[in-house]
Structure formats: C-alpha cells, structure tokens
C-alpha cells in the first residue's frame, strides 16, 4: 500500500474502523465517479494525471479497508507498528507451538493414507473455528478503537490495540496456511 495514504479520507469517510461493507462500497462508487476519465475528457494533462492518481488511491484504499486483514494491517501501520516486529513474535510460543503440532499431525495423517479422511475433516473444522474466533477478536478490537470519543483517546487506544492486532493477524495467517495444507492433503487422498 502507498505509504501515508489515509484510506478513510481518500474515500471521504469518517475514521470508523467498524465501517460496513455497504458503506465502503458506496464510498468507493462515489469517489470513483468523481475522478472517472469521462469527466476529464477536456481537462489539461495535469488534471488528467491527478484524476488518474486519485483513482489509484481510491481503489487502493477500498481494497485495503474492505479486507478484514488488510484493514487490521492498515491500523497496525497507522500506529507505526508492523506485523513483522520481532518483539511481536516473541510471546507467541504457546499458540504457535499448537500450530506446529497441527502441522505435524497433518504430515502424519498424510502418511496414513485414505483412512485419514475423517481426521482431516475434524482438523479442518477445528482450524476453521479458530479462524472465525480470530476474526471476531479483530472486530472486537476495531470496536474498542471506535468507542473512544476524542481523537486523542482513540489514538492512545490505537497504539495498544495495534500490538494485539499484530498477533491476531499473524495467527490468522498461520491458521489459514494450516487450513490450506489440510485442504491439499485431503484432496490428495482423492476421497
């Protein structure tokens, strides 16, 4: 994503992290219309160039915010943090070990062959529940930032929430990756 792009401002929206899909889609249509090439048919090259660059920003902002993880990563980066922070990974051993263990199980099941289908399905739903729970937690954190009345209080909450979100985004990635692995192994059984 373009650094420094204010996704909400570009879409003409209030800084509201719980923004609905409908509100986002409407904002995207409205802002896209404003910089549509047809409206700049007789414009100067400079105006045309600006409209084009604005279209890029609007598309980028929409793409970022409409994706739950994209929005979470945007929040994290707005707070000056990164999901790659080594510190953010340090405390992760407990649940990360669980991920390793599930991956080990998948490898063992794969070796077991067709009889493992039921076990794959069980693991699959366990992991899907975990992903759903992480998504709920992410939404809960969005709500926590929105609930602050003053911008200053919201900024304070943002810094705190960003750390927790970085862990959640990581979890989501590890869980999704594990689900991909299970799906692939399950498909290879041919059952």
């Amino acid at each position: 994503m373009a650094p420094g792009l204010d996704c909400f401002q570009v879409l003409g929206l209030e800084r509201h992290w719980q923004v609905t899909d409908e509100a986002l889609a409407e904002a995207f249509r409205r802002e896209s219309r404003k910089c549509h090439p047809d409206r700049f048919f007789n414009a100067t090259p400079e105006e045309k160039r600006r409209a084009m660059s604005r279209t890029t920003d609007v598309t980028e902002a929409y793409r970022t915010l409409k994706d739950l993880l994209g929005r979470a990563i945007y929040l994290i980066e707005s707070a000056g943090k990164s999901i790659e922070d080594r510190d953010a990974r340090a405390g992760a051993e407990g649940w990360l070990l669980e991920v390793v263990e599930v991956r080990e199980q998948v490898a063992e099941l794969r070796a077991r062959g067709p009889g493992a289908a039921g076990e794959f399905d069980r693991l699959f739903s366990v992991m899907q529940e975990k992903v759903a729970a992480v998504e709920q937690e992410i939404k809960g954190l969005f709500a926590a930032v929105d609930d602050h009345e003053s911008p200053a209080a919201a900024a304070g909450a943002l810094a705190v929430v960003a750390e927790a979100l970085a862990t959640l985004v990581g979890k989501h990635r590890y869980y999704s990756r594990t689900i991909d692995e299970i799906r692939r192994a399950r498909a290879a059984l041919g059952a």
Partner: protein
Amino acid sequence: MEYGSRVLEICENPKNVGAFPKSAADVGTGVVGAPACGDVMKLQIKVGDDHVIEDAKFKTFGCGSAIASSSLVTEWVKGKTIDQALAIRNVDIATELALPPIKVHCSVLAEDAIKAAIFDHRRKQAGAAPTTAPEVAP
C-alpha cells in the same frame, strides 16, 4: 524461484529432522514463525550438564530456505556451548546457504529459533534450581 545448490542439497537430505519430548528438563524448545508467509519452525536442543549442546532436532513447515536454514543451525550447534550457539547470526546462515535477499528472513527465523530454544532451556533450569540467584541488578 530458483534455490541455490546448497539449499537444494540440504532439502533433499535434511539433517536432524525430528523431536525431543518438550517437557524434558534438559531439552529447550524454540518455536518461531513468519507472520507474513505463515511458515513455522520448531527447533529443539538437548543440553548436557556442562552446558554443551549434545543434540539438536527441528521440524520446519515452510519453504526450502527455511528448512535448509533450520537444518544447518541444528548441525552447527551440536557440540557447541550455549554461549557459542547464541553467537550464531542470521548473516552466517544466509552466507553459507547463499540465500537471495528475498529469503534472508528464513535465516532470521532460524536465528530466532535457536535463541528461543536456549531461553526455554534456561527458563527450565532456573525453575529446576531455585537456589540460583536471579540475574537481576538490585
């Protein structure tokens, strides 16, 4: 993407794949991951009373460079003292494997994993021997 010959060589024949019981007092377990790609790495060391790493094992679920990096580290740390193992830097791993810049994070992961394993072992030792004075300045 193309892997270097050293990475391919290790991937075809990785050393020290496996596990130790993670609750054993002389075992340190390090688990790390790369949130950007979802790779996970578990690295374990078995440490003697003389603080020498007797054996090391790993399980890595990730790309070839991550597997090669962790395999290499388990080979390197065997026979080393804990302090020597702590001195391993990701640059050494990346250089040995000729990792391209885009894969350097795999070597960072391996460095983090060995550190995490050593800290886990230390934590266990501190817990097992409560008579040891804590390393905290007054």
